[in-house]
C-alpha cells in the first residue's frame, strides 16, 4: 500500500518512528566514529607504551648481545594475545631476536623502518628505538592484530546500538500512540461524521468540535456547510414536494381531460374508427362498435382487415379491397377520400356474416410534421336505405336523377335567398333615395313658397290689406314649419339607418357638456339649478348618446320654462343587468295616461303656441336607446315635473 493511502494514524506513527530511528542512527553513527578514533588512538598509545617498556627492558640484552635474554623478554609479550609479532634489531639493523620463536625470520621486516607506529590493514605495527643514555642500541618491532579487537569492539557497539534502537523505537511507538490521537482523532471524528451523513443523508447531524486548532476550524466550517446544505435540502425537498403535487394535479387534470375526450369520442353519434397508418385499430366510437357487432376490447390493437374480413361466402366481394385502396390514397395524398357506397358484410358474434351497405369517408389526421399520424375512418350504415329503395338499388341512373333533383332544389332555394337579399338591398337603396328626395325635392318648393311670399310682401305689400299681409306671414311660417319637420324627420330616419360606431362613452362627461351647451344657449335668461349625479362609462355610439342627452335635457329646460328657477337633475339607478339613467325636471309635467304616446313620432302633448317643437326628439331618444339594447319610459304628475328614464344594458348585445 503506498504511503499516501495509509490511514493518518499509521502515517503519524510511521513519521514519529522513522524520525526517532533516524535521529538515533545519526547519533549512533557519530558516537561510533568518535569511539573508533579514540580506540585507534588508545591502541596506538598502549602499543607505544608497551614498546617503550620492552625497549627499556631490552637495552641490557642488546648491550650485552644476549640473544636468549632478548628472546625471553619478547616471549613475555605472550600475555598480550593480540600481539602477533615482535622483533629486536641490533644497532646495525640485523634481526637480533624474534617473537614468536616459531615465526620464520623472513616473516619479519628485513631491516627496521622509520620510528613510529602506523595502521596497516587490520594490523598496527611500527618501530621503537632502543636507547641507553642517548645511545641507540637497536630497534624494536611490534605488530598488533587489531582486527580481532576491532571486531569485538564493533560487535559490542552494534549490540548496544540494537538495544538502544529497540528501546527508542519502543518508547517512540508508545509516545506516538498516545500523541497521534491528539491529531488524528478530531480528523477521524470529522471523517466519520462525514461518512455517516453521506450514508444516512441526515444533514441534521453535527461534527463534535474537539479543539480550536485547524481541525477545529475545519469542523466549524464543515458544520456551517452542513447547516447550509440542510437549509438547501429542506428547500429542495419542499420544492420537490410542491412540484410533485403540481405534477400530480396536472397529471390528474390530464387524465380527467383524457377521460373526458375519450368519453366524448366514444359517445359521438357518428360511426368512427381510428387507425394507425399501418391499419392497426386504435379505438372506435360506441356507435361504430354497435353497428359492427363487436366490442372495443376485441378490436383495439388488431389489424383492420383481420377484424373485418370479406364475407367468405361471396368470393366477388370488393369491400375490403376498395377500402384498402381508399386508405392507401389517404396515406399517399394526405387528403380526405370519399368512397362510393360499398357492400361490406359484417361478421356477427355467432360467426355468421350479415349483409351490410356502407357510406365511407377516410380522413388523415396529420401530426406536427405534416405526416399522417392517424386515419379517421367514418362510416354510415346505409343498409336500410339501400334495401328500402329497391328502385335506386343497383340503378345508378335513378340515383343520379334523385341527386340531380336534390341539387336543383338546393339551387332553387339558394336563388330564393339571393332574391330576397336583393329585395332587401333594393328596399334599402329605395329608402336612401327616398330620404334624399325628401331632403332635396320636398324642401325646394317650400323654399319657393316662402321666397315668393317674401318677394310679394316686398313688392306689393303696401297694396295689400292688413289681413292680406297677415296671410303672407302665415304662408311663410307654415313653409318654415314644414321645413323644420322635414329636417327633423330626416334626422330621425338617419338615426335608424346610420352605422353605429361603438366605443367607451363617459355618460357623465356627455351630460356635463350638454348641460353647459344648453345653459349657454339660454344665455343667462333662465335660472337653472343643475344636479348632475355620477354616471357610468358605457359601450355605445357617442354622437347618438349625446343626442339622447341633448333631447332630454333640452326638453327639461323647455317644459320648466314657467318656473322661476328650473331644477334639472340627471341621475342613475345601478340595476343588476342595466344602468338606468334619468333626467328629472320641475316643469309642467304631463298626464300619465299619455305617457306611452310621448315617444312616438310627431306626438305632442302641448300646443305649439305653448311649447315649440316638432315632436320628433323623444322618438329619436327611443330609437337610439333601442338600438343600444335599452328601454325608455317616463313618469310625471301633471304640474309637478316629469322624469324621463332610459336604460342601457351593462353587457350590451347591441342591436344594429
Amino acid at each position, binding site marked *: 500500500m503506498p504511503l499516501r493511502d495509509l490511514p493518518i494514524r499509521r502515517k503519524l506513527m510511521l513519521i514519529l518512528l522513522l524520525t526517532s530511528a533516524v535521529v538515533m542512527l545519526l547519533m549512533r553513527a557519530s558516537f561510533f566514529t568518535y569511539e573508533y578514533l579514540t580506540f585507534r588512538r588508545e591502541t596506538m598509545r598502549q602499543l607505544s607504551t608497551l614498546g617503550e617498556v620492552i625497549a627499556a627492558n631490552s637495552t641490557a640484552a642488546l648491550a650485552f648481545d644476549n640473544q636468549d635474554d632478548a628472546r625471553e623478554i619478547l616471549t613475555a609479550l605472550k600475555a598480550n594475545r593480540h600481539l602477533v609479532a615482535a622483533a629486536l634489531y641490533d644497532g646495525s639493523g640485523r634481526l637480533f631476536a624474534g617473537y614468536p620463536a616459531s615465526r620464520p625470520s623472513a616473516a619479519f621486516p628485513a631491516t627496521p623502518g622509520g620510528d613510529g607506529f602506523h595502521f596497516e590493514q587490520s594490523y598496527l605495527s611500527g618501530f621503537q628505538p632502543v636507547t641507553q643514555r642517548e645511545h641507540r642500541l637497536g630497534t624494536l618491532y611490534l605488530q598488533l592484530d587489531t582486527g580481532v579487537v576491532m571486531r569485538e569492539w564493533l560487535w559490542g557497539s552494534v549490540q548496544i546500538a540494537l538495544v538502544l534502537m529497540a528501546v527508542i523505537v519502543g518508547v517512540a511507538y508508545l509516545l506516538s500512540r498516545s500523541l497521534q490521537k491528539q491529531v488524528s482523532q478530531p480528523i477521524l471524528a470529522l471523517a466519520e461524521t462525514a461518512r455517516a451523513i453521506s450514508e444516512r443523508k441526515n444533514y441534521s447531524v453535527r461534527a463534535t468540535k474537539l479543539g480550536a486548532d485547524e481541525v477545529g476550524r475545519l469542523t466549524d466550517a464543515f458544520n456551517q456547510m452542513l447547516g447550509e446544505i440542510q437549509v438547501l435540502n429542506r428547500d429542495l425537498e419542499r420544492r420537490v414536494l410542491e412540484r410533485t403535487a403540481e405534477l400530480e394535479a396536472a397529471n390528474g387534470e390530464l387524465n380527467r381531460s383524457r377521460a373526458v375526450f375519450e368519453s366524448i369520442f366514444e359517445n359521438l353519434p357518428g360511426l368512427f374508427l381510428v387507425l394507425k397508418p399501418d391499419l392497426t385499430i386504435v379505438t372506435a366510437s360506441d356507435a361504430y362498435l354497435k353497428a359492427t357487432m363487436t366490442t372495443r376490447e376485441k378490436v383495439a390493437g388488431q389489424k383492420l382487415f383481420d377484424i373485418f374480413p370479406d364475407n367468405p361466402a361471396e368470393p366477388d366481394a370488393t369491400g375490403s379491397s376498395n377500402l384498402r385502396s381508399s386508405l392507401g390514397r389517404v396515406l399517399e395524398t394526405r387528403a380526405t377520400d370519399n368512397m362510393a357506397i360499398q357492400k361490406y358484410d359484417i361478421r356477427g358474434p355467432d360467426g355468421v356474416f350479415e349483409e351490410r351497405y356502407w357510406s365511407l369517408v377516410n380522413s388523415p389526421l396529420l401530426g406536427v410534421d405534416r405526416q399522417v399520424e392517424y386515419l379517421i375512418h367514418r362510416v354510415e350504415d346505409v343498409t336500410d336505405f339501400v334495401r328500402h329503395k329497391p328502385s335506386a338499388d343497383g340503378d345508378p341512373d335513378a340515383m343520379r336523377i334523385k341527386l340531380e333533383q336534390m341539387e336543383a332544389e338546393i339551387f332553387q332555394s339558394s336563388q330564393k335567398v339571393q332574391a330576397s337579399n336583393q329585395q332587401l338591398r333594393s328596399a334599402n337603396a329605395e329608402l336612401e333615395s327616398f330620404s334624399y328626395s325628401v331632403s332635396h325635392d320636398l324642401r325646394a318648393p317650400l323654399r319657393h313658397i316662402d321666397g315668393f311670399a317674401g318677394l310679394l310682401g316686398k313688392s306689393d305689400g303696401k297694396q295689400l290689406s292688413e289681413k292680406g299681409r297677415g296671410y303672407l306671414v302665415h304662408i311663410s311660417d307654415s313653409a*318654415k314649419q314644414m321645413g323644420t319637420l322635414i329636417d327633423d324627420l330626416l334626422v330621425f330616419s338617419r338615426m335608424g339607418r346610420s352605422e353605429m360606431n361603438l366605443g367607451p362613452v363617459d355618460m357623465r362627461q356627455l351630460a356635463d357638456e350638454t348641460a353647459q351647451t344648453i345653459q349657454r344657449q339660454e344665455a343667462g335668461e333662465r335660472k337653472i339649478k343643475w344636479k348632475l349625479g355620477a354616471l357610468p362609462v358605457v359601450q355605445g355610439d357617442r354622437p347618438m348618446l349625446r343626442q339622447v342627452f341633448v333631447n332630454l335635457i333640452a326638453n327639461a329646460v323647455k317644459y320648466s320654462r314657467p318656473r322661476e328657477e328650473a331644477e334639472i337633475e340627471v341621475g342613475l339607478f345601478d340595476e343588476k343587468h342595466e344602468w338606468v339613467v334619468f333626467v328629472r325636471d320641475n316643469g309642467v309635467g304631463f298626464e300619465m295616461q299619455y305617457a306611452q304616446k310621448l315617444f312616438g313620432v310627431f306626438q305632442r302633448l302641448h300646443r305649439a303656441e305653448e311649447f315649440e317643437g316638432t315632436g320628433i326628439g323623444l322618438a329619436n331618444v327611443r330609437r337610439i336607446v333601442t338600438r343600444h339594447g335599452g328601454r325608455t319610459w317616463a313618469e310625471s304628475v301633471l304640474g309637478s315635473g316629469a322624469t324621463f328614464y332610459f336604460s342601457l344594458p351593462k353587457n350590451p348585445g347591441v342591436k344594429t
Partner: protein
Amino acid sequence: MLVEDNLNDIDLTLAALEEHHLANEIVVARDGAEALDYLYSRGKFAGRADGPPAVILLDIKMPKVSGLEVLRQMKSDPLLSTLPVVMLTSSREEPDLAASYALGANAYVVKPVDFQQFVDAVRQIGVFWAVVNEPPPRTAIQ
C-alpha cells in the same frame, strides 16, 4: 355664374342678388351640359367674348349632367381647376357634402327654407366671391 335647373330657384337667387345690386353680370346655365359648354366656349357659346366667371354657384341635382359631374370635370382640367366653385343646393345629405369636398368644391351652402335667410346667404356668397375675393389670375385660366 349660376348653374341651376329650377326656374323658381333662378328667380329667387337673382332676386336676392338684385337686392344687393349684384345681378347684372350673372350668366345662368340651366343644366350641367350648358355650364360646361359655356366654360369651354363651345356649342352655342362658341366664340363668346367674355372671360371666365369670378365664381360658379353650382346646384347638385340637375338633368343631363349633375353638379357633381360638372365639378369633377372642372377640377380635373388644369384650365378650369382654379375657378372657385360654391355648391348651392337643397341637399344636406352627408354623401353629397363629402363628395363635393372630395372633388375640390371651394364652399358648400345649403339653401335655407326661410327666404330672408336665403337672401342673406346669397348676398354673402355674392359679396365674398365677386367683391372681396381676388379671383385667380387670368393667365392661370387661359
